[in-house]
């Protein structure tokens, strides 16, 4: 029955096309979309299994460690809250990388934008003090973060556009420079000499976001992140700009042929991505820190890339990728404190996930078999009809 329904629907859409052929096309497309999801889940599952195997191989008490890794993140309301808090910057950086990835520019400047935006926001907050109410202060900080991000991402974008310089290399070199700049500002302009580690003075109360849900201590930064996920999903899928951007990313030659300004659109997307990375840095400082205390690059840019890859550049799926990453990270932290296993192994797992999800040939044999079978079935049905 459902088959008949499909074909009639296809006829409605494209009356000039042979209904049976369009049915095959539709089914093939559906198999492809389904396989995308299967591949991502399989990739995550394999990477998770590898993580478990590593844990089993190196720990003295494998059962305890594995249990800690899987269930530890949910063992107390506080830990569940920290998964959500950790997912906030991952979500925002993931959105940022969605923009870069959507136009196929691996502009990794988000890494240092995150750090410098946090630094500048802290500095500004210290300068303003408690004179402004929170309702003004928080939006102001977010805007400042976005401006810092847009300005910084302008540099690799313009070098890519005007000078044809490789955007990955330029952004990575700039990351090293900007991280040092942030450390310089921290050490010479706002360092609190009264504390044992290198950190700024405490930020004013008006820019420390309040926590929600009682014991879970979820920072209200999650609200900012969720709003942005919704806004950007609408931008991606309901506006002309979003459509153009996705077209430029998926088929640049076609985009040029229909008269779109490929360079301009990819430029705008990179600026938007940079602005989001800046918002991410500002939010993180207001959500989880009382002082600016990063003395090395935080790695959030690369985490954002992982989230964007997991979400297949689709902003709606970004929260899922971010929560998964945060869950694995908290699991690694739990194992690190309770079982003395270094949490660095998570970056290996992250690499494996990116590789598996990015590999076109991973499970492609299976996909082709499915498509082949569906076409065969269709053919058999066609023969029956003619008889």
């Amino acid at each position, binding site marked *: 029955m459902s088959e008949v329904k499909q074909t009639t629907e296809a006829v409605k859409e494209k009356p000039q096309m042979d209904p049976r052929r369009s049915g095959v096309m539709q089914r093939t497309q559906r198999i492809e979309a389904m396989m995308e999801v299967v591949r991502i889940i399989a990739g995550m599952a394999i990477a998770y299994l590898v993580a478990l195997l590593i844990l089993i191989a*190196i720990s003295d008490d494998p059962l305890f460690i594995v249990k800690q890794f899987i269930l530890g993140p949910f063992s107390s309301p506080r830990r569940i809250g920290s998964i959500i808090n950790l997912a906030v910057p991952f979500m925002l950086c993931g959105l940022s990388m969605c923009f870069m990835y959507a136009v196929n520019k*691996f502009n*990794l400047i988000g890494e240092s934008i995150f750090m410098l935006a946090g630094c500048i926001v802290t500095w500004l907050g210290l300068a303003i003090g408690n004179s402004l109410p929170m309702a003004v202060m928080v939006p102001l900080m977010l805007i400042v973060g976005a401006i810092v991000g847009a300005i910084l991402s302008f540099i690799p974008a313009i*070098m890519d556009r005007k*000078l*044809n*310089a*490789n955007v*990955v*290399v*330029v952004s*990575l*070199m*700039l990351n*090293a*420079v900007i991280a*040092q*700049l942030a*450390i*310089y500002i921290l*050490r*010479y302009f706002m360092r609190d000499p009264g504390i044992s580690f290198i950190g700024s003075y405490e930020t004013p109360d008006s820019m420390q976001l309040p926590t929600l849900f009682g014991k879970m201590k979820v920072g209200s930064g999650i609200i900012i992140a969720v709003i942005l996920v919704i806004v950007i999903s609408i931008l991606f899928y309901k506006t002309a700009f979003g459509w153009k951007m996705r077209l430029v990313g998926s088929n640049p030659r076609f985009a040029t042929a229909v008269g779109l300004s490929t360079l301009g659109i990819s430029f705008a997307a990179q600026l938007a991505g940079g602005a989001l990375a800046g918002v991410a840095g500002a939010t993180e400082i207001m959500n989880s820190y009382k002082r600016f205390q990063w003395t090395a690059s935080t790695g959030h840019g*690369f985490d954002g*890339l992982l989230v964007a*890859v997991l979400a297949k550049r689709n902003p709606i799926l970004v929260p899922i990728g971010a929560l998964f990453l945060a869950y694995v990270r908290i699991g690694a932290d739990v194992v690190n404190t309770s079982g003395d296993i*270094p949490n*660095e*192994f*998570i*970056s*290996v797992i*992250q*690499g*494996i996930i*990116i*590789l598996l999800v*990015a*590999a*076109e*040939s*991973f499970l492609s044999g299976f996909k082709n078999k499915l498509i082949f079978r569906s076409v065969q079935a269709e053919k058999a049905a066609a023969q029956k009809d003619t008889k």
Partner: protein
Amino acid sequence: MSIDIVAFIADAIKMATPLVFAALAALMTRHAGMFNMGVEGMILCSALGAVAGAHYLGSVWAGLLCGILTGVLTGFIIAFAHLTGKTDLYLTCIAFNLAATGGTVFVMYLLTGEKSTTSGAFRSYQIPNINIPIIKDIPILGRIISGQSLLTYVAVFCVWFVWFLLKRTRVGLRIRSVGENPKAAESVGISVTQIGYIAFLFCGLFAGLSGTFLSMSWVTFFMKNMVNGRGYIGLSAQNMANGSPVGSALVSLLFGATTSIATTMKSQSNFPTEFLEMVPYLATILAIIFTSIYKINKKRRLEQGIK
């Protein structure tokens, strides 16, 4: 503030050695048509591999061999993912570098129980420095040319070797033809995948040498994130020299000199160290800007000439 010019030049050559190897590694894959950013992570892994090999097998040469083998192995991983697994090369390399940064710390912790450096746990081995008999007695030149690490001389040889390989051998011709036009190469029966693997084999060899130099000659231990962007700098160096081995080596030497200036100034002035840390990267960015402008102008002039 006095600077010993001769010592400075000798230091610049030393600093340039890992960059030359990194540039050669990137150059091999570039000629096969692949922009390999994974060099950074490959060097990092080899640096750890070399130190670990030397410690457990108890000899410098075993360390050198292990470093090279690690380089080749990591190259094979990237090649397998990209050529056989058909992943996007950029994404593969970013993922690989990410995994290498954490993975080396992880392995180091498993082997030594330390998270920042192996200097306490592993015995330190150093690739010997070579004093060339007659040259070492020449006043200024002797101090510059003689007394460098063995690997620095190997680097000079490798520059010639890569030139010879690419321009004078059958494999080199095939690598270049695959890079130039993979479809044309395939149509005359060259396997693009196979040539890709061969390019990655050489890439791994040079990345291994670069890593070994860092952990067994520059210093004698492995340190967390010790490559510090050298892979990317080498990559930009060969990009600027348009893939010429000798040109890449000269550009690397220039970058080595800027690093050397920064280190000298760090010890001799109280200029904020953060700005000195930026120098190698800023120099790379500026060099990219200038070479791109030069290339674009040249192209424009050529086009005008044709009209």
